[in-house]
C-alpha cells in the first residue's frame, strides 16, 4: 500500500464527486433539506388532518330514535355530533363515506331502561376508516356517559351511593427518566433513519466511481497508471465512506437544527406544553447524548461495510444504469432487518448480535434507552468490523479480476 497514492486518488475523487450533481444531491441536498422537510412536513400535515378530523362533528344516523326523544335530543345537543335523518341505506352511506357512523337502539330504548331491562345498542362503522373509527369512539363515549347516568339514577332511586359501582381509581406514575422515555420512543426510529441514510449516501458515489468510470472510459485510463489496484480501491472506498458519513452527519445536524427551530418558533407554547406535561405527571422525551455517541460509533463499521459492498457490486456493472438496477433493490435488503428491530418483542441476544444491520438497530435502540450490554456491544462491533473487512477484501479482489474490470 502507498499512502501518497491513496491520498492522491481520494482527493481527486473528492473533487470530482463535489462537482457531480447527483452525488451532491444525495450527499448534501437530501439529508439537509429534503429529509427534515419530509419529516416535519409529513408530521405537520398528519397533525393537521387528525385535528381537523377530530374537530369536525361526527355525522350520525340514529335508527329507531323516535322512541327515545330525550337521548336523541342529548345527542343533538352534543357539539361533537351532527344527527342525520334516518334512512334504510345507512350501511351504504357509511361505505360511501357520506355518513361516519350509525347507531341502532331498541325501539322503546328509554322505556326499557326505566323498567330495568337489558338493552343492546349497536354502532355501525367502517373498519379501517379513520373518521368512521373516530366517530365510533365518540359514540361509545356518549353511550358510556348515558349508561353511567342511568346507573347513577338507579342507585339514587334505591338510596345507594354512586361509589358502590366505583370503589377505587387506577392511576399511572412514570418512573423512567426523560432520556429513557426518548430512547424507547425514538430508539427504533433513529437507527432506522441512520442506516438508510448511510446506505443512500454511499450509493451514488459508489456507482459513479466504478460503473460510471467504466461507462465514461476513464477506468482504463486510471488503470494504466503505475498505481497498485489496492491503492485505487482504498482511495475510492474512502471517498464513498466520506459521502456516507457526511450524509449521516448533515442529516443529524439538520434534524437537530430543525427541531431546535421548531421549539423556538413554538416559544411559550412549548414551555407551556412541557409544564403541562410535568403537572400531569408525563415526561417530555429527550435523547441521551451518550447514547447518540454510541450509535455513531456502532454505525462506523456498518458504513464501511456498505461502502465496500456497494463499490464491489457497482464495479461489476458496465454502466451507471446497470449499477442502479443492481443496487436499488438492495435498499429493501437493508430496510427489512432495520424495520424488524423496531417491532416489539425482538430483543438483542448473542445470536442476533451476529446478524448484520439487525444487530445495529437493536443495539442502538438499547443504547438510546440507556441500556449498555457491553459483551453484546463488543460482539456486534467485532462482527461488524469483520463483515466490513471481508467486504473490503472482496472489493479489492473484484478490482483485480480482469473479467470484472473489462466485462464486455
Amino acid at each position, binding site marked *: 500500500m502507498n499512502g501518497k497514492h491513496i491520498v492522491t486518488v481520494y482527493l481527486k475523487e473528492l473533487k470530482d464527486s463535489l462537482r457531480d450533481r447527483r452525488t451532491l444531491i444525495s450527499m448534501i441536498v437530501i439529508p439537509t433539506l429534503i429529509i427534515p422537510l419530509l419529516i416535519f412536513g409529513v408530521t405537520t400535515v398528519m397533525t393537521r388532518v387528525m385535528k381537523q378530523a377530530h374537530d369536525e362533528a361526527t355525522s350520525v344516523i340514529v335508527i329507531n330514535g323516535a322512541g327515545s326523544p330525550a337521548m336523541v335530543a342529548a345527542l343533538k345537543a352534543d357539539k361533537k355530533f351532527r344527527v342525520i335523518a334516518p334512512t334504510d341505506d345507512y350501511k351504504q352511506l357509511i361505505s360511501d363515506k357520506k355518513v361516519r357512523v350509525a347507531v341502532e337502539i331498541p325501539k322503546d330504548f328509554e322505556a326499557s331502561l326505566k323498567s330495568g331491562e337489558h338493552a343492546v345498542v349497536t354502532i355501525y362503522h367502517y373498519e379501517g376508516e379513520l373518521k368512521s373509527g373516530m366517530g365510533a369512539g365518540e359514540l361509545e363515549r356518549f353511550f358510556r356517559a348515558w349508561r353511567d347516568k342511568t346507573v347513577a339514577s338507579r342507585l339514587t332511586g334505591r338510596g345507594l351511593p354512586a361509589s358502590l359501582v366505583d370503589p377505587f381509581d387506577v392511576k399511572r406514575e412514570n418512573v423512567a427518566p426523560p432520556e429513557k422515555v426518548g430512547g424507547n420512543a425514538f430508539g427504533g426510529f433513529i437507527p432506522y433513519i441512520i442506516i438508510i441514510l448511510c446506505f443512500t449516501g454511499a450509493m451514488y458515489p459508489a456507482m459513479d466511481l466504478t460503473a460510471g468510470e467504466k461507462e465514461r472510459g476513464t477506468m482504463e485510463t486510471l488503470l494504466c497508471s*503505475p*498505481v497498485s489496484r489496492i491503492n485505487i480501491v482504498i482511495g475510492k472506498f474512502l471517498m464513498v465512506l466520506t459521502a456516507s458519513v457526511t450524509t449521516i452527519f448533515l442529516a443529524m445536524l439538520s434534524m437537530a437544527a430543525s427541531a431546535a427551530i421548531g421549539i423556538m418558533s413554538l416559544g411559550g407554547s412549548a414551555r407551556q406544553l412541557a409544564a403541562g406535561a410535568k403537572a400531569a405527571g408525563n415526561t417530555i422525551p429527550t435523547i441521551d447524548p451518550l447514547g447518540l455517541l454510541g450509535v455513531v460509533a456502532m454505525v462506523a463499521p456498518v458504513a464501511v461495510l456498505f461502502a465496500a459492498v456497494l463499490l464491489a457490486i457497482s464495479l461489476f456493472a458496465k454502466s451507471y444504469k446497470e449499477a442502479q438496477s443492481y443496487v436499488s433493490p438492495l435498499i429493501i435488503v437493508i430496510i427489512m432487518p432495520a424495520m424488524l428491530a423496531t417491532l416489539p418483542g425482538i430483543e438483542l441476544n448473542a445470536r442476533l448480535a451476529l446478524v448484520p444491520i439487525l444487530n445495529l438497530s437493536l443495539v442502538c435502540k438499547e443504547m438510546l434507552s440507556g441500556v449498555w450490554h457491553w459483551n453484546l456491544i463488543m460482539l456486534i462491533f467485532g462482527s461488524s468490523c469483520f463483515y466490513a473487512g471481508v467486504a473490503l477484501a472482496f472489493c479489492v479482489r473484484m478490482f483485480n479480476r480482469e*473479467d470484472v474490470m473489462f466485462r464486455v
Partner: protein
Amino acid sequence: MIEASHLTKIFKDKKRGEIRAVDDVSFTCRPGQIYGLLGANGAGKTTTLRLLATLLRPTSGFATVCGHDVATAANEVRANAGFLAASTALYGRLTAREMITYFGRLNSLNDSEIKARLRHLADELDMHEFLDRRCDKFSTGMKQKTSIARTLIHDPAVMIFDEPTLGLDVMTARSIVQFVRECRNRGKTVIYSTHVMSEVEKLCDVIGIIHGGRLVAEGTRPVLQERFGEKDMEEIFVKAAGGEAALVAALNR
C-alpha cells in the same frame, strides 16, 4: 524496448467456450521504431496491447517492457509506458490541468516536476488556451491533446497506441499521426495498432499482421511486398489473413 514471446491470452466465455484472443504471438519492438500492429476488428490487437500495458495478464508466454516483465512487475511496466487508446477517456469534471496533474502525481512526480513538464507539454501541444477549462466542454481535438499530455506527463520510454485515430476528424487524426512520428524521432519505442492501411504505410517501420489472434506475417513494408508479391498494403493484408473468405469468417465469429 518491447519483447513479446509466445504471448497467449485465453478468455473463457459461457456461450462460446474458450476464446484464444492472442495466440502464441512473438515480436520485438525497438527504440526509435514504430511497430505497427495491423488487423481487422476482433483480430486481437487491443488484447495484445492491453497485455503489454498490464491491463490484462497473459495466460501463457511472456512479454517485457523496458526489461520489466508484464506479469510480475506490472507497476514498473506502467511507470515506463504511456498507453493511449480510443477507450482511454478523460475525467469530464476535471480541467485539463487537473487531469494531467493527477496523472503526474500517480506517476510519483512531485509538484514542481509536474509544473515544469505541464508547461513544456502545453507549449508543445498548444494547450494554454484551454488548460483551465473542464474536459467535458472540449472539442475532440482538445480532448486528444489532453490525452496525449496525460500519456506523456512522466515522459515514458515506451508508447502504446491502440487505434488512437478511431472516430476522429481528419485534422485531429493528422495531428495524432504527427505526434506518433515525433515520439519515434525522440527515440521512444512505439507500438501502434490500427486497421487503417494508409496509417500503416505512412507511419510504421515494422508491420505485424495479426489475424485470429495469431501473428501471421511480420516485416518491413518491402519485405512484406516481396513475400506476398503485392505492392498495395491492403492486398498484402488480405493475402496474409488467408484471403477475403477468411476475413469475413473471422468478422462473423
